[in-house]
């Protein structure tokens, strides 16, 4: 049998692919360079963590794991981490769904404001909820000791941590579920109503089954984030409620026990990877999309006025809690000594801007360096994956995504283990922080880039090449402008994350290069809540200003909905 491709002048496919690559060295070079970078900055640190955890004392053994798992305290930490992860994910998904449903499927007022309030925790450092909770419910808290006059109330431990994580991650669930609900054609609900189904039946038989894959994804993403969370447990878990990520950190920085820290981080890694693989399986499966035609008009009649009222009340309550949290941080930043002397004062802000000036500069320098690199890299990888055929394409996409499922603790430990000797001696430098941020947050750019590119007719790029443009020129002059929205939202995401990251960065800061988030944690650790609150406000102001600036540049509001997660 003669294949079509084997006819003279039409070389068979594989050879054709190589020939085309050879004719287009820019693509080949870019693909190769990126593969090497991903190998060095994603795979190699991971390998180092596993190797170090399996070679305590220089010999291959599982002794480090055995020793840790024999400890009652570590056993508790494993159970606690999983328990908090599952509960945080469950509660966040329920609240996030209610919030998203209210904003997408009903006509309640203030939807824009409610949306912005839900975004606020996402662009904040992931532990501001903890600071707010301590200011509200801690020993000098205005609610516990101020309003209620409680002397022995203890917010530290399970309930405080759960509250902090739900406040931190319910917005993430909201954003994902908002995307899910927006993707379900409301005409389907109209059709079910039209066929005689009651509102409850419409919800149960039509909306819920369609949203189930999205709900499962949201659950898994929040579970992964909760497991990886470091700031909240460090501040709120307390020693009576051990959490894995904090224990791994303490083994490394407190005991200098690298194998033990590595082993604990691998224990943390296993459930994350499992959750990530399930997530990919769900997302990768054929998804339900609107089958034909333009999206129909919707009546929004699938929700009764009573339900709408209840949903609005719930949503307003949650938004109110966000307002309360941020108000108390602002109050903390402007108080003399929190809980003792709450009269207004600018001392804390002055302290942050003078003593903390260098830290602020470091943080900004690193974020501003990492952001464009991450954004551009994301678009290049997306372009290569969608538009070009080359060996290792699938591996490229998978590796870049994998990094997102790795808990920051694992990445941080991996980086200090991988880059502490020549020729890759990077510990203590700015480069290690930049590399960490670039490769940690590039998957979001890749994913939103891929999503946008798949919707752009390849004929547009073919037209450019047909008119004589090279691959590189086509990318720069045609592709990049087309993926501009994805590019800018990737930039915003990378910047926000670089400004607010903590769990990996805490291992990588040094005397020369410190970060605001790390500084905030250390202020809380020393009991200087006013300074911590003031740092948080400054950080938040920078982030909001940057988002506004990029939004203005793009002349449209930043919508982190698109491609926020994988």
């Amino acid at each position, binding site marked *: 049998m003669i294949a079509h491709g084997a006819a003279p002048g039409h070389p068979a496919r594989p050879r054709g692919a190589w020939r085309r690559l050879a004719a287009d060295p820019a693509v080949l070079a870019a693909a190769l360079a990126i593969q090497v970078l991903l190998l060095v900055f994603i795979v190699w640190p991971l390998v180092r963590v596993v190797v170090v955890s399996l070679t305590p004392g220089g010999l291959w053994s599982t002794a480090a794991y055995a020793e840790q798992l024999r400890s009652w305290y570590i056993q508790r930490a494993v159970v606690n981490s999983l328990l908090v992860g599952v509960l945080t994910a469950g509660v966040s998904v329920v609240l996030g769904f209610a919030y998203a449903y209210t904003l997408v499927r009903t006509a309640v007022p203030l939807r824009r404001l409610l949306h912005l309030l839900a975004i606020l925790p996402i662009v904040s450092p992931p532990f501001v909820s903890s600071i707010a909770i301590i200011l509200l419910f801690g020993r000098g808290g205005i609610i516990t000791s101020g309003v209620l006059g409680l002397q022995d109330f203890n917010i530290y431990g399970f309930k405080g941590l759960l509250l902090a994580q739900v406040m931190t991650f319910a917005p993430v669930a909201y954003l994902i579920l908002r995307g899910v609900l927006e993707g379900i054609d409301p*005409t389907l609900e109209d*059709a079910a109503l039209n066929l005689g189904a009651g509102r409850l039946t419409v919800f149960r038989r039509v909306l819920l089954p369609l949203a189930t894959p999205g709900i499962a994804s949201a659950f898994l993403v929040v579970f992964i984030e909760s497991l990886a969370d470091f700031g909240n447990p460090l501040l709120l878990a307390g020693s009576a409620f051990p959490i894995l990520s904090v224990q791994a950190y303490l083994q490394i920085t407190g005991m200098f026990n690298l194998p033990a820290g590595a082993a604990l981080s691998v224990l943390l890694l296993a459930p994350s990877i499992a959750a990530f693989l399930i997530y990919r399986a769900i997302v990768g499966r054929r998804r339900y999309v609107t*089958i034909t035609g333009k999206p129909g008009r919707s*009546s929004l009649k699938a929700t009764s006025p009573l339900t709408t009222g209840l949903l609005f009340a719930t949503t307003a309550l949650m938004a109110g809690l966000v307002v309360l949290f941020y108000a108390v941080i602002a109050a903390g930043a402007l108080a003399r000594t929190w809980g003792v002397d709450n009269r207004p004062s600018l001392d804390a802000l002055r302290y942050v801007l003078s003593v903390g000036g260098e830290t602020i500069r470091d943080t900004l320098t690193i974020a501003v360096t990492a952001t464009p690199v991450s954004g551009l890299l994301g678009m290049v990888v997306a372009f290569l994956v969608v538009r070009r055929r080359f060996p290792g394409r699938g591996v490229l996409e998978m590796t870049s995504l994998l990094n997102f499922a790795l808990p920051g603790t694992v990445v941080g430990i991996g980086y200090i283990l991988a880059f502490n000797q020549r020729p890759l001696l990077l510990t203590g430098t700015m480069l290690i922080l930049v590399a960490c941020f670039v490769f940690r947050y590039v998957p979001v750019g890749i994913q939103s880039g891929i999503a946008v590119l798949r919707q752009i007719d390849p004929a547009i790029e073919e037209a450019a090449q047909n008119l004589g443009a090279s691959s590189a020129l086509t990318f720069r002059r045609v592709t990049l402008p087309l993926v501009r929205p994805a590019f800018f939202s990737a930039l915003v995401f990378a910047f926000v994350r670089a400004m607010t990251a903590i769990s990996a960065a805490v291992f990588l800061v040094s005397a020369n290069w410190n970060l605001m988030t790390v500084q905030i944690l250390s202020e809380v650790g020393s009991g200087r809540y006013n300074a911590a609150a003031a740092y948080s406000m400054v950080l938040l102001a920078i982030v909001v200003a940057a988002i506004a600036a990029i939004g203005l540049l793009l002349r449209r509001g930043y919508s982190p909905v698109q491609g926020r997660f994988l």
Partner: protein
Amino acid sequence: MSAPALLIDRLTKVFADPAGAAVVAVDDVTLAVAAGEFVSLLGPSGCGKTTLLRIVAGFETPTAGEVVIAGERVTELPPNRRDTAMVFQSYALFPHLDVFENVAFGLRVRGVAAPSLGARVAEALALVGLTGLERRSPDQLSGGQQQRVALARAVVTRPRLLLLDEPLSNLDAKLREQMRVELRRIQRELGITAVYVTHDQVEAMTLADRIVVMNRGRVQQVAPPAELYARPATPFVAEFVGKVNLLEGRVTVADGDRWRVALAGLEAVVPARGPVPPDGRVGVVVRPETVHLRRDGPLRGVVRRTTYLGSQVEYEVEVGDLRLQAIGQSPLEEGIFAEGERVGVTIGFDVAHVVPLDGVG
């Protein structure tokens, strides 16, 4: 006489547009549809026809007026209690259910149980010619098949009303023609009352017993297709339904059932219609197929454009100051006039129709 299957009574719907201004989508519409009748709502996009249909289905609440189905006032009834099955423009098939379950949905929510359920779904699928595809998922079906599933899903519950919202607009031309025929057959077979929204006048003409032409939220005319074409009530209807030469003129002599009308440069005798307007100005509707071109004739003209369509030829011909569209039938037998050629023109004024001119322009 029994109550009409559907009565739309002085219905008005006012929306607020994004800027907050009021937009009258449906403006004081009254319409009665008899049992078993096929009525088409025809008009350009934005004329209010879809809004009207959605009000009947209960998806929109009217600002004023009533909807009465088979004698029962349903204006405030929620959509799920109206028993008005709709075929959506996007079909709105449930993507998580297979063909069988899509069609069974309405029966299940009505509590129809096993043996009867299967039989009725099978019957509905047989009616639309999809027997054997029960276990397919909607996205494994072609556009035409999806359309049939949507139709089966709508008719399986034997609804009091079948509502169709531009159901054929997503199909290619050939399939559309085929589905038109089938839609009409199924509607007749079931004896179901149908309201069909479309902007395609050919679709409305071929399907409907009566056509309701709408423009800017108002009903322009309600009539069977032949009457609509022969005797349009307004210039809008004349131009929207079929091709037309709409000639402005002035009535010079009103003589019983004939009027003498002065057009640009020539005089015509046309069938009279009602009282002569005070200023005498009228529009004369001349369909292109009643304008004939010959080698010779009393009226001389010049062919300005010739468009060959195979079975016929479309001409634009200049007669004095008038520019007329004409259609030449069977060019194989009659030949074709070239552009610039001088011809004799006969205009079928005896079958022309007069419309009032107010509201033109």
